[in-house]
């Protein structure tokens, strides 16, 4: 691990100012991902700004739904009564992620900021455009190792089937974010130029030519909280995570479902997938198809087919082209209790 400066702050303003002032400065929340990346020399920060003392861990009811503070621990959110009652999908998704020890440390904001688990990103001797962008620029930082994409033509079993580019086929690894994008969350951020709100579906981005950029945050911006609007999905929601072992494994792919059902008919539905794209992947075409239709296996299969439009495999991950529609059908059947 490289030597670095360490600053502890107690107000968001001080945190934002510290990160804006010097390049190579990173917020440190739970540290469950950042510290690993530092040990592996994937990220070489000059300075860490510890935001664990910021008073941002509240989970509260608001006029329009729920507000969850960015520093709330994953375990605390998953076990929160309001969350379990109003957005059980979020609770399920959080509990499907990582291990109990990690969930006790990891925060909501940090979970959104976690980097891909692509092995080529993690190993500075391997080519990676995300870690070592081709063009030097403001996002380059002090990155290590060769550019290129090791996963294309390499070990890409875990990789994207939607929205990838020829620079990067990595996926966003979060479970929590699949629930948040499905539930129409919004992200409240504060930065050097003031506060703003970002729709969750626009928070993460596709790799395009800038795979080093995971999200649309501007330099110095700090995640303050996440808002979840009131919904009617609590009775029929399900998070299906398909993985290589039963716990402590990233998703081969996952499906988050929330359905508003009335007498066997789907009034409204939210569908999102994880492990398939550089961002949490919302299945809007499938949602539109299912709305107003009876909850039948035939309809689920057709929705799954619609969801797969534009999917593309890269060799080892071709199986996801079969697994994804299967998982969508399985998740819909479970959520609607028609299995």
């Amino acid at each position, binding site marked *: 691990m*490289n*030597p670095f400066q360490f600053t502890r702050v107690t107000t968001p303003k001080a945190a934002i100012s510290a990160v804006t002032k010097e390049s190579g400065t990173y917020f440190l929340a739970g540290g469950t991902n950042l510290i690993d990346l530092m040990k592996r020399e994937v990220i070489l920060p000059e300075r860490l700004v510890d935001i664990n003392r910021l008073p941002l861990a509240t989970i509260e009811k608001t006029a329009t739904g729920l507000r969850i503070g960015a520093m709330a621990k994953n375990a605390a959110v998953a076990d929160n009564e309001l969350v379990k009652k109003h957005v059980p999908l979020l609770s399920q998704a959080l509990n499907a992620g990582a291990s109990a020890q990690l969930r006790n440390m990891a925060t909501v904001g940090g979970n959104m900021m976690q980097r891909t688990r692509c092995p080529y990103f993690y*190993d500075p001797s391997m080519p990676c455009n995300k870690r070592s962008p081709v063009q030097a620029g403001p996002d380059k930082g002090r990155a290590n190792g060769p550019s290129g994409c090791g996963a294309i033509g*390499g070990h890409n079993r875990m990789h994207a089937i939607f929205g990838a580019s020829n620079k990067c086929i990595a996926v966003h690894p979060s479970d929590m974010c699949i629930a948040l994008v499905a539930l129409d969350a919004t992200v409240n951020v504060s930065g050097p130029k003031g506060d703003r709100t970002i729709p969750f579906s626009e928070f993460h981005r596709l790799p395009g030519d800038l795979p080093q950029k995971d999200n649309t945050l501007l330099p110095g911006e700090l995640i303050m909280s996440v808002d979840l609007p009131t919904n009617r999905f609590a009775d029929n929601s399900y998070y299906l995570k*398909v993985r*290589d072992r*039963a716990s402590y494994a990233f998703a081969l792919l996952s499906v988050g479902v929330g359905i508003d059902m009335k007498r066997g008919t789907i009034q409204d539905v939210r569908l999102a997938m994880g492990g398939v794209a550089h961002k949490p992947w919302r299945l809007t075409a499938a949602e539109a198809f299912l709305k107003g239709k009876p909850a039948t296996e035939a309809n689920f299969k057709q929705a799954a087919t619609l969801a797969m439009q534009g999917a593309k495999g890269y060799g080892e991950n071709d199986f996801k082209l*079969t*697994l994804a529609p299967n998982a969508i059908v399985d998740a819909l059947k479970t959520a609607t209790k028609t299995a």
Partner: protein
Amino acid sequence: MTNKTKNPPIDRIDGRMKVTGGAKYFADFELPNTAYCVIVGSEIAKGAIASLDTQKAQGAPGVVGVFTHQNMPPIPGWDAPVGGEADGPAPKPKTEETYRILSSPKILFDGQPVAIVVADTYERATYAASLVKVTYTKQAPRTDLEKHLSEGVAPKGAEGGNYLRGAADGYKTAPVTLEAHYTIPVEVHNPMELHGILAHWTDDKQLMIYAKTQGVNATQNAMAQAFKIDPKTIHVHTEFMGGGFGMGLRTWPQETAVVAIARKIGRPLKLVMNRSQMFTLVGHRPYTVQTINMGADQAGKLIGIAHAATAETASYEDFTEATVNMTKFMYACPNVSTRYRIVRLDRSVPIWMRGPGEATGAFALESAMDEMAHKLNLDPIDFRLRNYSETDPERNRPYSSKNLKEAYQRGADAIGWKERRNQPGSTRDGGWQIGYGMSTGVFSAFRWEASARALLKADGSLTIQSAVTDIGPGTGTALTMIAHTVLGVPLNRIRIEYGDTSLPKAPTQGGSAIVSAVGSAVYDACTAIKTELMQLALKAGGPLAGQQTDELTLADGVLSVSAEPKKKVAVSDLMQANKLTVIDKTKDSKGSPEQEKYSMYSFSVHFVQVRVNPLTGVVRVSKAVSVADSGRIVSPKTAASQMIGGVAGGIGMALTEEAIIDHRFGRFVNNNLADYHVAVHADVPAIETIMIDKPDPIINPMGAKGMGEIALIGFAGAVANAVFNATGQRVRELPITPDKVMQKLT
């Protein structure tokens, strides 16, 4: 005799120490003025170091030295292979390449040490190691066994010879035949405890070592050979080990290098490797491809089996294991041929991993037996019983003991085998399909040479000593139980000392042989004490004079006449009367020529129930029953634990474990515990263990055979067979991950 009655379940004697931090592992030892070292590994798999810049590292805070091929201190014994098995069989046949750590710029495998950085703290050594800059001249590595299968060579020695009984292609004449190919990937031992060593030259000729080794005597001999010094001047200590699974069966080159550097710098030196180095520097289970041809008649009698295996090894050393051996004797079959080949690749050398080659071979043979049973529309147990070998067909001699039929029956009853339908895909529960599978495991039961010392004091306490290391199965508990049974000393008055070369010599812990080997020595030493006590009591003028030895009972510190318990003498009184403060006996123990007339094996049967989601391909082992036929069980609780551990490892082997290489680079891409999936608690159901617990009359006085390997051997096949029964999908490539099982949506 110990073996006539079942032994009571006793708690693990060191359990409390282990869970309270009282047990000291090698890295727990601290010596004054210790320096710490960190290995810099090659980032290529084949080629050479082009340039090496250590200047920045040398100038980093706390750095004591940076050692590379340019300044590595000489190791006098380097004319012999460094890290060879000092107590093992004859030296390995010469390969074209040789690997001597830090001796040349040549790179032979991914992660090969290119520098060892020494500093006053581990953290400073780690930082300085990151400052070593290396450039390479790369060559295209050959690491993919599948692409080089045709380059297999027949290894020399017992494991390499082709075997033939009857006609090699006898299977072809059978009315029902099958040919199937089975693959297992690279698996890595990955015990929780990281590998390493602490070496301290107290002067230029006296060496103290705390190591992670499965055999302190083996490490002592290897270092004596490497440094050309008298083994008596080397003291090795390894009392506890946080899991070995085979990776500690030899002394690895980096350990020898640490000892050499420690001498050079004149300070104690400690190495604790990191997790990714556990994938390249301490061996692995080799990637192996197998083909089984099998023929049977309509009555379910095997006509012929041909079993061929090809496994990877390093370019610089031939590694072999007994992958095809089980096929030679497991079933009564007139025509059997086996063939074993190795392919030298640009990979680090493999090493035995729990159940070694037999676990690999059993996956193929026991999957094929299931496939054939299905073709014949026979129950898989019935098919095995129709081909049961009552005597060893390979060596034409009786088994010393074999209770496998009883094991099949008891396991079948416990798993609920009668619920199984022979037609795959017959049983459902909601969206899940349920299947049952079984498989046999077998491993040689050894009786190696070992020594032990027993000291009975007049205060009634007993001390047992042996150099053997307890790698975790409960060796200390089992040895305590044996001593208790012979001498009747209460368990809490028995102290055991082991894992140190100052104690009587013992073999390396491996091959499921320690209770048999060291246990026999303990038995003999304790029996010698008992004999002396009886002689003292029975001699003229003695308190029990006039009685015969076989009329006496020794229990709880009292020697009494069995038929007249009032006629007795306390052992302490007897010793005091004879002015003895201690009776001290050391015994060497080994098998008898009589044993040559028998084939000695331990057997197991594994049964599993699986639940399979046909849409997602997810397989859950929902029930597991493992039955051990391994003679008299010496310590029932630790034996059950050992079986449970084997099953947990077996679930990993079956469903999750695979070390993945990107062959473009010849390097691992999942060399960490997040991406290399050992089974976690959520993958492992409650496991029922059943011990046949019948003594083997031949192997040793306890009647005990080993069980470490059979706990794992065969388990993966049972899972694959259950997945087939659940779904009709036959998976022949481990691990059985969801993508191999999911069925296309129709």
